């Protein structure tokens, strides 16, 4: 099939180039607008119990879970100075005219909103709208609130999400501006000629443009996360250049062997084309697995990545051969760097060195890989808050003030709604709520429960019944607010406070404990557990409930694909195990840096204490695909040499020599592209970039250059072992040497 496709492309090379030109020109206006319909966040799902609970609490208790937070300050005036208070009231006094705002609480309503350490006040406006609508509403409010003589910082979820979107786009722009020049320089180094270097960049870039265009159109029909953009771009550049580079170098090699231009294209198509196709298939296996997760962020990365890899594969198999057929020998024009083909280089001596002492190489390198992977064992999964943003952004600065001055986000509040029939102050319902309140207080990790029936340990149902005979008569400011805000007909809200951090695994255990509670037997009613910790519990359950199964499926399918390609049961096993080792090493590095905070000063971020829950899955999907690219490029050259010579050691040396520079170049480009994301402002993007860069670096240095040849040397003829019965039933896809 590939040979037929290659022949067709060579015959219709100008038409193919023209069609691609039209496709790229068509994608050109839409690619820069790819983020237009992407949605912020995307970590949650409508089917999560926490999301369902939120809807019940919104409906039954008018609970507002989204708010805009205003932080007012003044260098001299104290918060309760009449000038300060008047300015605050003037600034936010009109906000209740908006239907989107359900309440406004100032420091005059709740003195805890005045800092005791600085002249700072925190005002909250609760919203009745969803996050997506709130982004536009935020603009209106921002224009409407005039702080007068006070300083004002606006934060809260809408402002944070706005800034995450802005920062992500800025990260992308910065990443691209750094990555492209360095990638081009690396290509020049690998090929040594201008034309050959430009080709992969052009074809890879074309693939990315088309991929982003596809994302633009898909995001109008399917919910896709803004995080998808960075990853899709990163992956698109990476694999696009990988494929083109591999293809071009093979073409040059075919030309050097004296073949005509058309035959050289066909030869490259037959060898490199097949490797690229299998490489893309294995990448797609990893990335399609993301679509199985019930989390929009991962699903959209999966969809976007599949689009961009498919575009890259198509470009490599059609546009690249057409361009090479047109360029012919001109591909080697404008030499400005070394001709690696004429040098024995680094790879043959390295291969010989490894072949002579395989165990001496294998044991220390595997030890290093295991040491790198060890921190992964202490990985704590969590989710992100505003600390993923740089402190140069307003919403992050506001978040920091709320955290430092008002203890915001340092402890967990889990809203638990109890719904039932009738008045909340009917004796039966007071009795039930009282029992639930006591039980919540007893749970490990709970520091306090706020509700109408958790006011005081000396109070029992009798006292509460008296207290609520006439709820209007309550003059205690705090209790009056609790009655107004946490009770409705048929519903009572418990705010369960814990000193545990919202991200900690122990907090998720607490959420699970609360969810296991049933209202007192025979009394009916239902408990609904809402809140950030509850949502994180759902996200992690959703992600990691399926993750092991997906890993197993991906590993098995990859194993079978490689077995088909290399007709061996040992080589695929080695490839899969080494890939897993590369991934574990990158997990270890992630934990060491982003969870434990090493190098946080150098990399300019605040350690999260946890690893963002989607990161390990994303990295698994991306790294598994990419490191499999290198494995296939290397093994296909070794297999080709082995088929020709039957000499295992010579084949390994030849395979390393012929693919080493290409793999190193491709990996170098990807490391540069990924590492450029370390400059990102958003910590999650930074972590993806670093995790990927480390994984690829480990893969091409320790794994591909040392561990893989050493294992193959030790395995000897076992490398090529395929049981006879399997040999007979497996279809033949390997090229004819």
């Amino acid at each position, binding site marked *: 099939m590939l040979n037929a496709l290659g022949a067709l492309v060579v015959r219709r090379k100008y038409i193919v180039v023209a069609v691609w030109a039209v496709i790229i020109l068509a994608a050109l206006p839409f690619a820069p607008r790819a983020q237009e319909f992407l949605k912020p966040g995307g970590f949650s799902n409508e089917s999560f119990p926490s999301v369902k609970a939120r809807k019940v609490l919104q409906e039954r208790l008018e609970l507002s879970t989204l708010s805009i937070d205003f932080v007012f300050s003044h260098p001299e005036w104290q918060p309760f100075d009449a000038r300060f208070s008047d300015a605050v009231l003037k600034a936010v006094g009109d906000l209740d005219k908006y239907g989107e705002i359900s309440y406004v609480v100032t420091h005059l309503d709740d*003195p*805890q909103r005045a800092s005791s350490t600085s002249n700072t006040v925190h005002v909250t406006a609760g919203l009745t709208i969803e996050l997506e609508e709130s982004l536009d509403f935020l603009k209106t409010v921002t224009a409407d609130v005039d702080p007068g003589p006070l300083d004002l910082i606006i934060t809260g979820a809408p402002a944070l999400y706005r800034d995450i979107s802005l920062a992500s786009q800025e990260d992308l722009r910065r990443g691209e501006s750094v990555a492209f020049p360095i990638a081009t320089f690396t290509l020049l180094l690998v090929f040594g000629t201008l034309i050959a270097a430009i080709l992969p960049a052009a074809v890879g870039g074309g693939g990315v443009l088309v991929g982003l265009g596809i994302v633009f159109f898909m995001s109008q029909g399917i919910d896709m996360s803004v995080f998808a953009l960075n990853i899709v771009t990163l992956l698109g550049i990476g694999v696009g250049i990988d494929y083109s580079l591999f293809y071009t170098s093979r073409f040059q090699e075919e030309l050097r062997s004296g073949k005509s231009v058309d035959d050289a294209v066909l030869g490259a198509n037959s060898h490199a084309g097949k490797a690229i196709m299998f490489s893309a298939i294995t990448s797609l296996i990893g990335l399609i697995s993301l679509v199985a997760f019930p989390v929009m962020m991962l699903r959209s990365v999966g969809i976007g990545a599949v689009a961009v890899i498919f575009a890259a594969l198509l470009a490599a198999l059609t546009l690249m051969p057409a361009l090479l057929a047109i360029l012919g020998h001109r591909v080697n024009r404008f030499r400005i760097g070394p001709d690696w083909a004429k040098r024995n280089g680094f790879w043959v001596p390295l291969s010989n060195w490894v072949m002579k002492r395989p165990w001496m190489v294998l044991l220390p390198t595997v030890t290093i890989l295991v040491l790198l992977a060890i921190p992964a064992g202490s990985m704590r999964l969590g989710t992100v808050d505003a600390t993923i943003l740089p402190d140069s952004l307003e919403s992050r600065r506001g978040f920091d003030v709320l955290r430092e001055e008002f203890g915001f986000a340092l402890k967990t509040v889990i809203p638990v709604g109890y719904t039932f029939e009738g008045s909340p102050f009917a004796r039966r319902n007071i009795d039930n709520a009282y029992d639930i309140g006591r039980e919540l207080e007893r749970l490990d990790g709970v520091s306090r429960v706020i509700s109408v029936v958790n006011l005081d340990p000396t109070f029992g*149902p009798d006292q509460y019944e008296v207290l609520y005979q006439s709820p209007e008569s309550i003059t205690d400011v705090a209790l009056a607010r609790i009655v107004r805000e946490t009770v409705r007909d048929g519903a009572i809200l418990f705010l369960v406070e814990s000193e545990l951090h919202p991200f900690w695994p122990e907090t998720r255990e607490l959420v699970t404990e609360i969810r296991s509670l049933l209202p007192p037997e025979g009394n009916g009613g239902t408990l609904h557990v809402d809140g950030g910790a509850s949502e994180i519990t759902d996200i992690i359950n959703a992600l990691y409930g399926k993750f092991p199964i997906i890993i197993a499926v991906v590993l098995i399918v990859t194993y079978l694909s490689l077995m088909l390609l290399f007709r061996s049961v040992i080589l695929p096993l080695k490839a899969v195990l080494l890939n897993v080792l590369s991934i574990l090493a990158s997990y270890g590095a992630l934990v060491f840096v982003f969870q434990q905070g090493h190098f946080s000063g150098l990399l300019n971020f605040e350690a999260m204490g946890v690893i963002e829950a989607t990161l390990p899955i994303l990295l698994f999907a991306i790294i598994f695909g990419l490191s499999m690219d290198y494995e296939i490029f290397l093994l296909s050259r070794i297999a080709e040499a082995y088929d020709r010579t039957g000499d295992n050691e010579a084949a390994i040396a030849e395979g390393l020599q012929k693919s080493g520079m290409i793999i190193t170049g491709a990996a170098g480009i990807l490391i540069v592209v990924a590492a450029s994301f370390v400059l990102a402002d958003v910590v999650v993007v930074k972590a993806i970039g670093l995790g990927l860069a480390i994984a690829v670096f480990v893969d091409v240095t320790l794994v591909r250059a040392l561990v893989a040849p050493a294992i193959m040397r030790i395995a000897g003829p076992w490398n090529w072992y395929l049981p006879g019965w399997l040999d007979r039933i497996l279809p033949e896809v390997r090229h004819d040497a």
Partner: protein
Amino acid sequence: MMPDRRRLRVSVFIRMALTIAFAVLAAGCITSVEPRSVPSGASPDPTATPAPIQFATGTPGTPNDEFAHDARLEWWYYSGHLDSESGREFGFHFVVFKALGGTGEPNLVAQLGLLDVETGEHLELYRARAGFTGDVDEDGPMTVDIDDWTYTVFATAGSHGFNAANDTEAGLSLQLESTTPAMLHNKIGWLPTETGATYYYSRPRQSAVGELTLGGETLKVTGTVWFDHQWGDFFVLGKPAGWQWFALHLDDGASLMITESRGIDGEVAETYGTYMSPSGEVRSLRQEAEGIRLASEGEWTSPVTGATYPSGWALEIDSLGLDLTIVPVVSDQEVTLGLPASSAYWEGKASIGGSQNGEPVSGNAYVELSGYADPDPVPWLQR
């Protein structure tokens, strides 16, 4: 030579099986907990007895209940009668409220009410702050800053001071020394109510020396002050619940506190009091046993809140032979600043006339009337 095929096949499948087993095991690591019903019928022990109130003894390390407590609600309340050097009469109340806020941390609100008897002018000032981070040494003094006001309780029992004099138009700073022992109400200073229990004692007579500012003029003042200290995990209910409270300084040197409290139904729940004789003997008064009768003899309606308060009272206590008339020196002494409208109350200076065992008696009083302003509606209850 090819290796043994069978061994190889077994090895490969063992590894694959291990991979799958690992995956299945890992899948099982997601925690789940069996559902369980909340046990019902729990209730706190109603028989808990309070610890006795203790005051500074001069021995370091001994407890002093004059200082702050870890309680839902606490207040230090001063109401008194002041005279300037030229003989101008003033009334005042100064209070520091400490109440738990919604976050579980205490909030502080301080109020100062000043009455110029000559002009009838009644002024209010207030300060508020979050948190109770005053300098509270175990052995005292306790110093609390409420914005730019300072309140101090010294280590010596009954020795207090406050400075609420930073505004240019009005203010008061006083040094206070008790001239009588503490008066524990309800015998041990502990009052259980339907909505929680409170410790409650008074220092019925403190001599006051200080400076009062009014209309930009600062005067040296002296006088006599009634001090109340109350704390506990209790709730104060508004209209129709509430109370009338009277702190009487009789000219013979006796002091008398009388409270009439109303329940949530608006009916009088109980009337009780404490009497301290001129020689300092304390006697707890219960309505039935002592024959206490309290009747209001007039009304005053606030132009600010619309609340109608009793104004003028007849008080009889058979066991003490008291037959008194209590008359506000100015009708408008309502306190609203820094409070929700529903929490507005009346705190005012009054004069006492009447007789004791047939002999004429007079004196000064401070009266507090709570639970007369209409409550704020609870929106969801109105639907």
